């Protein structure tokens, strides 16, 4: 495994007024890794995601990314969400945020937006390059849907999809932005065991065949343990542990955070 981390978060701190939601959290992800971020409810996991993806501007710390394509390291604290996406970090949302009244294909096409060029003039004149770009985007979107296994829904409205398919569509849409890293916020929430198993396979496939590294928040421990190369554990805004699944399973601090004080009996 490449030792150079593609995402390196140092001492990340986020205050909301007097509330410290994140307290000096360190986290790193290397190329080709699947990393899980776990912790009890309210531990600050989603806040952590929101800081990285530019929805919040963190109060302190550094978020460094190194795009594998050119190897340049950049600090991305407080830049706009769309720029974070442009730089190659794409995310999904805990509560599904699809474009409900657009078709599945269009949802994925929106993901392609930042890799397209057509402007106002191009749109009005619809010259050869614009038409070609549109055609290419449709083909690309379809091929992504095929990889995710959603091609049978291609012309359906997103709101009419079954729940599990909506979650997968979120992943497809994020992949359309051509990221080098995917941030998945509870991708298995509300899924049944069958769907979770399929998701497990899908994530491994994305990581291995597409070369996209993955950072995910998840509560389903079975999924986390089988999927992750490394796990970070948070509680009350602090990182309390990190390590391989085997290490985390035995870590007393983690057990305490999840099960309470008097478990050691």
């Amino acid at each position, binding site marked *: 495994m490449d030792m150079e981390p593609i995402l390196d978060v140092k001492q990340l701190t986020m205050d909301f007024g007097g509330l410290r939601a994140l307290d000096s959290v360190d986290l790193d992800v290397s190329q080709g890794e699947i990393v899980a971020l776990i912790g009890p409810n309210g531990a600050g996991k989603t806040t952590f995601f929101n800081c990285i*993806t*530019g*929805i919040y501007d963190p109060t302190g710390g550094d978020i460094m990314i190194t795009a594998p394509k050119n190897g340049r390291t950049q600090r991305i604290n407080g830049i*706009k*969400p*769309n720029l974070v*996406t*442009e730089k190659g970090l*794409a*995310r999904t*949302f805990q509560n599904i*945020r*699809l*474009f*409900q*009244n*657009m*078709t599945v*294909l*269009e949802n994925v*096409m*929106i*993901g392609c*937006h*930042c*890799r*397209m060029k*057509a*402007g*106002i003039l*191009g*749109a*009005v004149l*619809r010259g050869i390059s*614009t038409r070609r*770009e*549109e055609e290419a985007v*449709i083909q690309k*979107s*379809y091929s992504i849907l095929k990889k995710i296994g959603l091609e049978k829904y*291609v*012309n359906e409205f997103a709101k*009419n999809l079954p729940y599990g398919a909506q979650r997968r569509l979120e992943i497809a*849409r*994020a992949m*359309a*932005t051509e990221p080098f890293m995917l941030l998945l916020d509870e991708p298995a929430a509300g899924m049944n065991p069958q769907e979770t198993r399929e998701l497990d396979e899908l994530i491994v496939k994305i990581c291995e065949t597409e070369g996209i590294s993955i950072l995910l928040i998840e509560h389903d421990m079975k999924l986390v343990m089988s999927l992750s190369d490394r796990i970070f554990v948070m509680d009350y805004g602090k990182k309390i542990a990190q390590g391989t699944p085997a290490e985390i399973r035995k870590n007393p601090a983690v057990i305490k955070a999840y099960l309470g004080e008097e478990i050691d009996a």
Partner: protein
Amino acid sequence: MLVNELKKSFLISLWFMFLTFPIMVIRVNTVENIIQWRWANLFFVGIGSFVLSALWRYLIRRKEQGIKKTEVDGVARVTLSQRLLRERRFTIPALIVIAIVALAFPFVFSLYQTNIMITALIYVLLGLGLNIVVGVAGLLDLGYAAFYLVGAYSYALLNYHFGFGFWTVLGLGAGMAALFGIILGFPVLRLRGDYLAIVTLGFGEIIRLIMENWNEFSFGPSGIANIPRPGFFGVEMNFEQVTVYVYFLMIALSLFTIFVVNRLQNSRIGRAWIALREDEVACQAMGIDKRKTKLMAFALGATWAGFAGVVFAAKTTFINPASFTLWESINILCVVVLGGMGSIVGVIVGAFILILLPEYLRFLSEYRILAFGTVLVLMMVFRPGGIVETVRRTYQYEEADH
């Protein structure tokens, strides 16, 4: 069930008879100092409210059953208007008929009718412009008349001071309006929904009030008169000819607008607008620049108001701030909402209905606004999606080459 419904309608009519009793039945004749009891009126109110209430309940029930049916079937109900729009067999002859009517109109009907048509076409332009902002991008703009004003005053002032002609200002006025669209856009980038509506409303009023009070610049409430009508390569034209000329100019401008707006909607930018309307946060997370996209919507929407404003000034030859009040903004918004948000055909139909209906309802004299209001309320209850519900052309994928 039926008896129950009728009983409810009966009770409602009783309640109405009671409520309207003081104004409908009692009449005090101050000349002869007697009180007249008009019992017949009570009877009419009772019958009228009973029938209306029964009809209302029936329509509501039918609508609910329709919704229930779609839920059970799982397929979206395709309305008649949507079906008609999809059928090529129907659309092509319809377009031909419309084209013939549009071409023949000024030669068949009187000058007065042609003038009304020009006004309606101006509203088509305004409606299509506002449709970009409200219908497609989902940004509720209550100050749209301000851009209309900017267009109209651009022509009036540039002509007054520098003698610019109509054709020069047509572009300049649209550009000015777009600029004002961006100026309005910047402060409201972070706002949405109600807050956005209030700020845009304020903006519209500010622009109008400046024009009303800055006498040195805009000649205040007395307005600017003697604005030249549009010219045609220096050809001398009498009033009638000019009107016909403006009519065809508006037809051309409308076609141009429809063409551009349609292309914009079905492009990368149009998709971004729709995504912005659907979910702002997700939109940004997908790499769409919210700022740029919103500003583009405001600017492009305002551009059409600028065009419409210039034509309006040239058509009426006189403008003052009273033509650009909040009422005007609301009227244009009504065109969009009534016609069907996001639907180009809908907005055009809406513009014609909203402008022509009050004109041809003149025989109802002062009741026409009341009738108009009733129609609007009924529309919103029974067809909340507008006359022509959005038939946005979605991108379809057909697997042909695999």
